[in-house]
């Protein structure tokens, strides 16, 4: 499936994810979310806690069930009930990197087992020697020494553990990796290591990333396109620099105004805009998610859209 010149790898349309609460109405975590991810790019998904960004990632990789909408990977539907074959395909081609390196590895298993776990499931190796070779290769690719395979996770630092998580995903030879806040739990000095690793792997293997984060500075650095999500809805989507230069939606603007900068003079002069969801009047004029300029989408009703157009 192609859109103009670029191949669409993942296509999400009208996605809705609900969580059932006993005795009450289900909580709608994600509603009417639509976007495309192109092959080879890094797609940033930015939002604050509770915005639904993690839920979207987990819905794609089939941990969360979808209530409505379609998620297509290479043209095939991957949400809801799907044939076993396709489920296996998803397991192999789509992988996830988790946020907390202290919680995302099995403490009682050796690194060797942790990294090979996916291989055991898909039987994607010829024999024991082949498996060991694959584990070694994966560890080396993430900058770890092969001898680490016989150790346990608690023997490693946060950054090293996160890299073990990356190795675990890489060994499956995926095409699409969902990185859910991969550096938020890491120390500041280690974040750069992991970001660099992700970039170089992308160049070497032609990977496509969905980078979920609450940190706009990181997303600005690493993402090609960014979607801003607020309370389960995408309010704006554009190429990174376009978004930072011409933020249209008031929520985007408030987020941008609050980004911390490591520059005392800039910080002293900073004025943070507060976003008030009640400032929208959607009683009569309903909002739509519209492409206001090429590649730049924003959520707004007719009155707001006219405003936004004038701003550009």
């Amino acid at each position, binding site marked *: 499936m192609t859109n103009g010149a670029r191949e669409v790898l993942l296509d999400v349309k009208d996605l809705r994810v609900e969580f059932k609460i006993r005795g009450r109405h289900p909580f709608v975590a994600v509603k009417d979310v639509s976007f495309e991810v192109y092959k080879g790019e890094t797609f940033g998904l930015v939002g604050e806690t509770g915005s639904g960004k993690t839920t979207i990632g*987990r819905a794609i990789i089939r941990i969360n069930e979808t209530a409505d909408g379609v998620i297509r990977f290479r043209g095939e539907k991957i949400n809801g009930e799907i044939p076993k074959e396709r489920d296996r395909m998803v397991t192999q081609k789509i992988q*996830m990197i988790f946020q907390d390196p202290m919680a995302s590895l099995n403490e009682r*298993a050796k690194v060797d087992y942790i990294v090979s776990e996916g291989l*055991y499931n898909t039987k994607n190796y010829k024999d024991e020697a082949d498996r060991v070779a694959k584990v070694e290769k994966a560890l080396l690719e993430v900058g770890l020494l092969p001898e680490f395979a016989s150790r346990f996770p608690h023997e490693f630092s946060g950054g090293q553990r996160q890299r073990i998580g990356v190795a675990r995903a890489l060994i499956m030879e995926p095409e699409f990796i969902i990185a859910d806040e991969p550096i938020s739990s890491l120390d500041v000095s280690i974040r750069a290591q992991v970001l660099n690793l992700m970039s170089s792997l992308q160049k070497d293997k032609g990977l496509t990333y969905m980078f979920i984060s609450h940190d706009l500075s990181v997303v600005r650095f690493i993402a090609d396109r960014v979607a801003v999500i607020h309370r389960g809805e995408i309010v704006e989507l554009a190429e990174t620099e376009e978004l930072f230069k011409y933020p249209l939606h008031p929520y985007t603007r408030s987020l941008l105004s609050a980004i911390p900068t490591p520059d005392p003079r800039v910080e002293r002069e900073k004025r943070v805009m507060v976003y008030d969801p009640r400032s929208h009047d959607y009683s009569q004029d309903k909002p739509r998610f519209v492409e206001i300029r090429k590649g730049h989408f924003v959520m707004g009703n007719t009155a707001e859209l006219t405003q936004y157009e004038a701003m550009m």
Partner: protein
Amino acid sequence: MGSSRQDKFQQLSDGFLALSEEEAERVSSYSDELFRPAEFDTEAAEKAGYSNYSYWGSTLRLFLSNKVSVFLLVFLAALLVFTFVQPYLPNQLHPNTIYQDPETGIHYRNVKPNAKFWFGTNNIGQDLWSRIWSGTRTSLFIGLCVALVTNVVGITLGSIWGYARKWDKLFTEIYNLFDNIPYTVLRMLITFIMRPSLFTMIFVMCLTGWIRMAKYIRNQILIYRDREYNLASRCLGTPALRIVVKNIMPQLVSVIMLQTALCIPDAIGSEVFLTYIGLGLPVSIPSLGNLINEGRLVMLVPAQRYQLFFPVIVVSIITVSFYALGNAFADASDPRNHRR
């Protein structure tokens, strides 16, 4: 000091802070060579931060550091070994034989502890020493069987209950059903139907015991089920069984050991109780419950109180030891205690 060195010293000491004069002098005397760039070892940078923590190592160390636990473990182990070795020792009497004076033919009834009968005899003339050890064997056997069965059944069903969301409702209903029936009534009913015997007793205790272990395991599984490392395993396609066995079970070692350790004295206690209400083992099989019951009947006669004391002491020692050891092990194997 030569003038150029003095200048250097002056330059340096203006720039130094919090150095004593000798230190400042020492530092300023260093050769310039030392201030050239050094070789950078990239591998050394990566190797830093290795910790040699071992889970079982720390568990063992913590356990052994508690002198009381070690003593109890040794004592209990010795007791258990003795229990099973006792019949093969020389000069042991038979638990069920009624002993009588070879000359007079009078049964040796209610004889206080003496050289021949180390724990005395009961009111029909049976040797209490051998009866106690035989009874302990039986009671321990019951305890171990019950522990084994409730563990296997409880862990298996508890895992399914906790992990497979769709079974949760069904199991919870079954649990509520069992929970609302008074155990005693249930046990009485079944023992009555099936007639008292060793098998009946074990069966009855397993029937009511698996539920507690299952619920416990289910609660633990709920805690670990949605942790990130288990989500990661699901993303990698790991089947549910392997996630439970390889990811979650190892975390539950400590709680399972505790439940097992408590199960045995609980079984013995239940057996004593059931015997008390008349649903215990047949009198022909000596058990701690039977012995305590028999002893209870003569409790008020001071001369015969020993018939109650000995079995009670044995039960108390076993109960306290298992409880204490179970807790000590659970504490030692809890990773949160390993910091110390």
